[in-house]
């Protein structure tokens, strides 16, 4: 049901964009107003969400420890999996952000010949890594619509991405890989019973949305062509704050753009915020130094303590008079 609803919403969104452009001629709404609005919602929402997180205290010192803690000098500690200082944390975060290390450590519990076995399962890690990197490259490639002249690294990226030199327009690998990876991530959700059981609309919807974005982009690049110069005129109009909507851009472009706008506007309110959240995960970004430094719960109220020194100061005379030992005479 969750799956069906998410799918229908994405189809409906595409139909809205198509109908809005084809039937009602709302090119300016879909080409200018909605993109600006979506971008504003994305930026403001993102910052707002991160600041909310920043204001939440971390009551306990909770780094996950995946290796030997730093202790005696002759015991080798695991500097990245159980970091004891800032440098280690930076290394650990880098591995997490760039290589999804915690997913790489994913284990599957199961019976093999009647014995309980834990085996590594890398498929989710691999699918996720491919998905994120191809999406990132696709995003970078799109800089060609938002810069003029286009930075040279975008050109080099195109050369690498178009390595096969197949067809005209040239086949770009990452677009297809992105679509394949997102379909894999969806199939995994749909067919593994355990994963399906915990999947909600909020899990399916972004997958279908990204599938829609990738598919509409691929269709537009290879099949139902649009005049790319007019498209760039529109996008450059947006980033130079002099919006124009050139005549004769095909509806497929507006479908693609509208789905992206929805993705951007939805971003701050969804699980996609893991883009910012990964940096704020206390289990990853804290060094495991709780035996060297005391972590104080920020919401602890001031506890009135009466130390022994103060106690002795107060009762010294009385203690002496009954013969109790005191530290200071």
């Amino acid at each position, binding site marked *: 049901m969750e799956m069906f609803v998410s799918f229908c919403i994405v189809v409906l969104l595409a139909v809205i964009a198509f109908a809005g452009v084809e039937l009602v001629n709302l090119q300016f709404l879909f080409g200018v107003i909605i993109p600006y609005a979506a971008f504003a919602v994305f930026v403001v929402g993102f910052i707002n969400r991160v600041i909310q997180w920043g204001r939440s205290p971390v009551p306990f010192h909770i780094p996950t420890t995946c290796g030997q803690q730093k202790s005696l000098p002759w015991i080798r500690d695991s500097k990245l999996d159980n970091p004891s200082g800032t440098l280690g944390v930076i290394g650990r975060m880098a591995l997490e952000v760039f290589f999804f290390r915690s997913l790489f450590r994913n284990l599957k519990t199961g019976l093999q010949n009647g014995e309980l076995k834990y085996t590594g399962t890398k498929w989710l890690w691999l699918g996720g890594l491919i998905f994120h990197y191809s999406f990132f490259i696709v995003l970078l490639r799109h800089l060609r619509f938002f810069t003029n002249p286009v930075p040279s690294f975008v*050109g080099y990226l195109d050369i690498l991405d178009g390595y096969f030199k197949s067809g005209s327009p040239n086949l770009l690998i990452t677009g297809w890989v992105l679509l394949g990876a997102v379909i894999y991530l969806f199939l995994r959700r749909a067919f593994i019973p355990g994963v399906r059981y915990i999947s909600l609309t909020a899990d399916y919807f972004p997958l279908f949305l990204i599938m829609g974005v990738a598919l509409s982009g691929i269709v537009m690049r290879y099949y139902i062509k649009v005049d790319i*110069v007019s498209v760039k005129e529109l996008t450059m109009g947006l980033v130079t704050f002099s919006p124009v909507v050139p005549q004769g851009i095909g509806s497929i472009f507006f479908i693609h753009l509208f789905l992206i706008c929805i993705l951007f506007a939805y971003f701050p309110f969804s699980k996609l915020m893991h883009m910012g959240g990964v940096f704020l995960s206390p289990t990853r970004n804290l060094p495991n130094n709780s035996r060297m430094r005391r972590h104080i719960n920020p919401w602890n109220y001031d506890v009135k303590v009466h130390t022994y020194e103060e106690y002795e100061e107060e009762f010294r005379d009385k203690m002496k008079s009954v013969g109790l030992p005191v530290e200071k005479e």
Partner: protein
Amino acid sequence: MYDGGKIITGLIIFLAIVTFPFYSNIGKANVKPAPDLDTPAIQELEVKKCIEPTGFMRANHMKLLKQWMDDLQEFDKDTYRASDCKVYDSSYDTCMECHVSQKNFCDRCHTYAAVKPYCWECHELD
């Protein structure tokens, strides 16, 4: 805010990345490229149109040219029947009869859109 310094720094980096298209274009005008259509062959035409309608050519010329290449290489077919039933030699030279210059015609849009077709790895530059 806890760890405010680090979080604000992170947010500033985030802002710098996502607003890059905006600030990198400050003070630039959005000028659309104009491929040069003022060539002798085009001037002579009574009806100024390409072999297919302009809208189709703008969006689909790369597919058409690829089809011509495949037709020639695979089926030894060197003519193209356009949608108005006129038959043309499906050759790079047919394009260049009217459009003359790679630099003044092809490249103007290709540079704008940062496209590098591999036509000129074999065909001659002008």
